């Protein structure tokens, strides 16, 4: 009789990893096809947004002493969505303001692409975290491989 238990990655870790690298949370719980499909799609959408509008479409808020932080965030509201794209959003937000801005509708389309990519990553992050709480049989996925979930404990 085998009493071997497989290590399961905690749901908060899965969610955090999935936020940082879109789709990576699914890879941690063994759902490779789902992770690659979701991750690549989100990354392609985000990169397409930057390609269409220029990297300046990712423009994080600047916090100035004496002004309300909430008001500062609301002025740059699209960055809420872009930030949700994880490391990509943070990196682009670091570079973006130093580059020349694009204008009008092209900039709007680029902003839309990047913000939607981030919001899709939020959905995927919640889903990956939820799936990490399920037993492998309940994950109900064709490629669920719990053995990929980490080192085996005796």
């Amino acid at each position, binding site marked *: 009789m085998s009493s071997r238990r497989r290590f399961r990655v905690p749901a908060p870790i899965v969610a955090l990893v999935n936020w940082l690298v879109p789709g990576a949370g699914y890879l941690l719980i063994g759902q490779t096809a*789902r992770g690659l*499909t*979701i991750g690549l*799609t989100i990354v392609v959408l985000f990169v397409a947004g930057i390609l269409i509008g220029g990297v300046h479409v990712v423009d994080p808020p600047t916090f100035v002493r004496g002004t309300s932080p909430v008001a500062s965030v609301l002025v740059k509201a699209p960055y809420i969505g872009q930030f949700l794209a994880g490391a990509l959003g943070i990196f682009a937000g670091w570079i973006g303001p130093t580059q020349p801005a694009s204008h009008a509708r092209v900039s709007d389309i680029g902003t839309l692409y990047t913000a*939607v990519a981030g919001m899709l990553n939020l959905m995927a992050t919640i889903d990956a975290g939820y799936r990490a709480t399920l037993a492998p049989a309940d994950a109900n996925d064709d490629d669920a491989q719990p053995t990929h979930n980490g080192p085996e404990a005796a």
Partner: protein
Amino acid sequence: MSAPLLLLLAWKPFIDPPPHVWDYWYLLPLPLCLGVSIVYKSIKCPSMKQVPREAAVAFLSIISGLLVAAAVLFGLVRFAVG
């Protein structure tokens, strides 16, 4: 050298928008709708084998919705307002 080629050579990807990209504005929603369909259906479907078909249906539904909304707005502007 022709002007469009010069514009293309002067283009700095990821810094400047591609030249003449707005000439094709009507194609720009398509990749976005496709991406939304794929990610949404990858999350919703129990099996990944269902995703291509389900995502195609969702993609066509979104595009149909956009076309209907465009037609309604066009009619409203053309006949009700103008």
